[in-house]
Structure formats: C-alpha cells, structure tokens
C-alpha cells in the first residue's frame, strides 16, 4: 500500500480499518477520549464515494476478492453497477413507503393531475412521500446487491409499521413491491451475467450513515405493463385522486399503487362487507381470510375494462 488512502480502502475492504489505519497509540487515545472510530470509516467512505480512482480501486479489490474466492463468472463487466443504475433511472416504477401525511387536497391534486403525466405524478408523489416520511434514513444504493437493498427497505418497512401502525394496506404494498425489486435485481444480475459486487462503496456508506435517498429500485418486468397501462391517462375524474390503470394484469398485483386514504377507505368497506355476509357464503372462512390477509386494494380504474 503506497498511500494512507489506499491503505484505508484496503483495510475497509478487509474490515480491519480500525486496527490498521489507526496506530495503536492513536486507538488508545480514541478509546480514552471517547472518540468514535466510525468517523474514520466515514472519512474513507466519503473518499470512496467522491473519487473515481477510489471507486475503481474498490472494484478491483472486489474482483480480486472474487477471484480468490472462485466466485467469478465467465465474463466480467466492471461497469455493471452503473448500467443497473442507468436502468433504474430510466424506469418509471417507483417503490412507495407507507404514507400518512402526504395526501394532496382535492384542489391541489386536481392541478397536479392536469400538469403532470400519470407516471411523473407517481414519481413525484412517491418521492415526496419518501422524502417526508423516510427522512434522512437511507442513502442511495445499487440494485446489484439485491440482498442489501431488500434488507434496508425491509427495515424501513418494519420501522414504518411500528411507528405509524395504521397503514397496513400501504405497508403491504410496500412489502410486495420490495419483493418485486428483489426479483428485478436478481433478474438484472442474471441477464447481465456479470459479477455481483457484494457491496459498493455507496451501499456501505448508505448502511453506515443512514442518509436520505431518492433512488429507488424498480421493476423492468413490471415497468412494461405499467408504462402501457398508465399512458394517456392524465386527467382523473374530479375530485378523485385515484391512479389510472387500464388493465387488470397479474403483474400489477405486485406493483399496486394507490392513494392510502382511498385504500384505507376501501379496506373499511371490505372488512364490513366480509363480516356481514359471511353467513351467506358457501365458505364461511373466506370472508374472514380476506380480513386477516394483507388485503391490497389495487389502483382505481378510471375507465375499467369489463
């Protein structure tokens, strides 16, 4: 290792940063003075995220690691993560967390619909929700490391559920969309046939610093159906804020997007209906099953196709 910077990257990769970057005396001082050694890690991570050369070095270390561990595929594309990120940015499907205070007023929502396409509306809507509700919790991450992405999102999902505890429908949507993102991530990896980098610097920084994020993983599979079903439906009947979906495609059940207030309202009707009509049903269990299940009311259809 020629420079302290390179040494730091190497140590971070080997999870030995504290021991090697800090000398023994320095470490003792930090322990004595209560200095958080995580700050050192954070500095190295900052460097990794900022400097292209550091990123490349990190990638090389990943390849060396995988070579030694015999994890290499037949072909290697060192630029895989950037291609995945580009695919994400061009994908209109957006993950949504549970939302509680982002419901636009009817007037605002109407203007919103007039001025935006449905897809951009969804993106804006969800990004607003992300920014407001998630706050500064998670930093950007690449889909390539799907397991990490899922675990980070899962934490957010659980956190939301415990903290708000009132939007089961949205939470269910979120969970399902997380499942979608996992599928897509794996699909991307499979299609690329490339090396899977266990952790990118940005991801480690994300887990370490808990910063905010606007990047969300998206489904290419579902994006196709969404982009077709959501196009050309900019106006919604006043004063509804429902999202338009033309076709009831099976894949849509995994990317259900709807206004949480409407979802909650529909769920209320569903429960009431289920508890009232169970005596009339052939299978008395079925209505109750709907109650206890994470019932996901899918997007409202403006012009439902019969």
């Amino acid at each position: 290792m020629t420079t302290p910077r390179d040494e730091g990257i190497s140590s971070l990769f080997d999870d030995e940063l504290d021991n090697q970057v800090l000398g023994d005396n320095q470490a003792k001082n930090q322990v004595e003075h209560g200095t958080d050694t995580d700050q050192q890690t954070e500095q190295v991570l900052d460097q990794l995220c900022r400097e292209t050369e550091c990123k490349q070095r990190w990638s090389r270390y990943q390849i060396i690691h995988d070579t030694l561990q015999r994890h290499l595929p037949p072909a290697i594309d060192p630029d895989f993560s950037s291609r995945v990120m580009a695919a994400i940015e061009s994908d209109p499907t957006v993950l949504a967390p549970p939302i509680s205070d982002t419901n636009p007023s009817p007037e605002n929502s109407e203007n919103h619909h007039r001025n935006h396409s449905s897809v951009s509306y969804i993106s804006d809507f969800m990004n607003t929700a992300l920014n407001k509700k998630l706050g500064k919790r998670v930093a950007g991450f690449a889909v390539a490391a799907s397991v990490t992405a899922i675990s980070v999102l899962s934490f957010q999902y659980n956190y939301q559920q415990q903290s708000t505890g009132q939007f089961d429908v949205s939470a269910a949507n979120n969970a399902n969309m997380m499942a979608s993102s996992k599928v897509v991530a794996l699909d991307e990896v499979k299609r690329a046939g490339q090396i899977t980098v266990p952790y990118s610097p940005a991801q480690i920084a994300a887990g370490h610093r808990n910063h905010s994020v606007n990047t969300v993983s998206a489904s290419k599979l579902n994006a196709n159906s969404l982009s077709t079903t959501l196009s050309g439906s900019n106006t919604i009947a006043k004063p509804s804020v429902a999202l338009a979906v033309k076709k009831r495609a099976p894949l849509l059940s995994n990317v259900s997007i709807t206004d949480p207030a409407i979802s909650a309202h529909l769920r209320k009707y569903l429960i009431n209906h289920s508890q009232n009509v169970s005596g009339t049903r052939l299978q008395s269990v079925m209505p109750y099953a709907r109650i206890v299940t994470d019932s996901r009311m899918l997007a409202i259809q403006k012009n439902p196709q019969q």
Partner: protein
Amino acid sequence: VINQVILFGLLITLAQFCVADSDMLTRDLTVSKHQTQPSLNSPSLSFSEEDSAEVLLERMVLASKQLNYHGTVVYSHDGIIESMQVIHKGGPGGEVERLVQLNGVPREVIRKDDVVTCYMSGRRSVLVGKRNLNSNLLATFSKKFASFSDTYRFDVGGIGRVAGKVARIINIQPKDNYRYGYKLWLNKENALLLKSELVGANGDVLEQVMFVQLDVLDSIPDFMLQPSISGESYTWHQGASKTKESAVTLDNWLFSNLPVGFKISTVSKQQMPNSKSLADHVIISDGLASISVYIESFGVQSQPFVGSSYMGAVNIYGAVVDDFQVTVVGEVPPLTVKMIAESVLSVASKAGG
C-alpha cells in the same frame, strides 16, 4: 441415619409426584388422542353416491355449524398464498370461530355467533361488528334451492382428496356473466368443506381456500378460542348497527337496474369505523353471491372516488350520486358491481326530475 431417612422420604414423595404427573400427562394424551377421532360421524352428515348436490350442500352447511374442528387453511388469491389457523366450536351452545393469520402481521378474527371481532395488530385496533344473519345459507338451501335454477347449475363431480381425506366434488356454474362459479370439495365422512374455489368466467380460479390439515374434535378447549392479541392498548371500533335492521327501510334510494337473480336482502344503518354518521348498507344477493352497497354522505370521508378496484375475487366500484358516495363491494365480476353502482338513484332527485 435420620437425614438418610428424610432424604429417602423426600425421594419417595418426589417419585410419587412424578408418577402422578406422568399419569396426568398420559391421561391428557389419551384425551387428546380420543379427541382427534371424528366424533360427529353421524349418518346425517355422511353421504352416499346417489345424493344430489342439493342434499350434499345442505349437509355441508349443517356440518360447518355443528362440528368442532381445528386445522390449517391456505388461502390464495392474486398469486399470493396465505396460511391461517382455523378453530371452530359448534353445537347447541352456539358457534365460536377463530381465525389466526400465520404469516406477516399478526391478525385474528373471532366470531361468536353473529358478533365478529377483528384484531389488527398492524393498526393496533380492534374492530367489532355484527354479522348479518338474516340470510344464512342453510335456510337458502333448505327452502329456496329451486330459485337457483335461473342463475346456477349444480353438478356432483368426481372424487378428490384434500388434506388426506376423501372428498366429493361439487361444481356450481353460473348461467350468465353476472356471477362467479364455485368448485367445492366436501369431506365424504362428515360433509365438511375441505376446499373451495371461486371460478371466473374463463375458468380461472380467482380465490381458493383449502385445508392442508384438519382434525375434527369432540370438544374445543376454551383457551384455543382466546385471542393471542390482547388488544389492551388498541383502539376499539364498535361497528355494530345502531338501528334495528327490521326498522330500516330504503326510503331515499332505489336500484333501477339489478342483474338477473339479484334481490335486496337486507337494509341497515352501519356505523363505519372512524365515521361519525351512519351509512346506508344494502345487501343484495342471488342466494350464493352477496354484494354490499354503502351509501355515505361526503362529510364522513376525506375524498370521494369514482372507479373500480379489487382484492382477490372481491370487486369494488365507487360512484357519486348527488352528494353521496356510493360504494359497491362483492364477490362478483366487475361488470356486476359497476352495474349496481350505476343503478343507484336518489328518490328525491328522481321525483324532482
């Protein structure tokens, strides 16, 4: 020596306790084993090859009310599979049924006769509601089976096997596009419904409920019917009807165009959760499929909505009539809920215009 005697005595006493515990355990196991034997194997519930679909369905409804059983059910819809524990206590003392969601967020539903209590741990709330018993299926099959002739065709199918038990299959096919079909697997021994499918127009299975394990018991201990969710710090929503259903008539609304075979079953006022005013609740049924129509003023909700949605086989359609939100919910095709929602008319506006 004295100490040894005392110690020996203690050992003897301890051994006696152990034997006693062992006896109790053996007795419990014996009881438990005995309980797993089908007790309600009455001739009235088992059936022969010649029995018609009508007879089989009557026995099925009777079995679902009378038998004590405990099992695990899988419920699939929209490509999702959920598993649930079902405990049912029947008999002359009344029915108690407990359904426990085994995956994800803990939720339970407990029904004591006509009172349904839903424990939603995710929302930290408990919903209490009264089930509508005015149109129970047993009465329908006993007295009105002929009325299905215009809407459904009933066929007794072959023999199947569900949850390790031999089952008789019944096919119920709709005669038009306003309702779904059913495929039922009935336990050949006791007529209990082991599996049911809700079938769409193209033969697609929209929803499926199936026992994967089932024990019919002599009795159900009370502790098995207690909710595991305490609900102490939860918000309780009392959703029982505030007005007697018999006293409610549909004075302000009418349905101009109901699908063939569907009739208004009951009319009531419902106190919906988190709502201050009462909603008109109309249940429309063709005898098998049930549809709820809710009519609420806009003041009780944040925003109206127009359009359709669905969950599993349940379709919902929202419409706005005058200043009221009309929401139609039912296990029927989208076509049917839309047709009913669009047929709702205000008596006042019709009289005026």
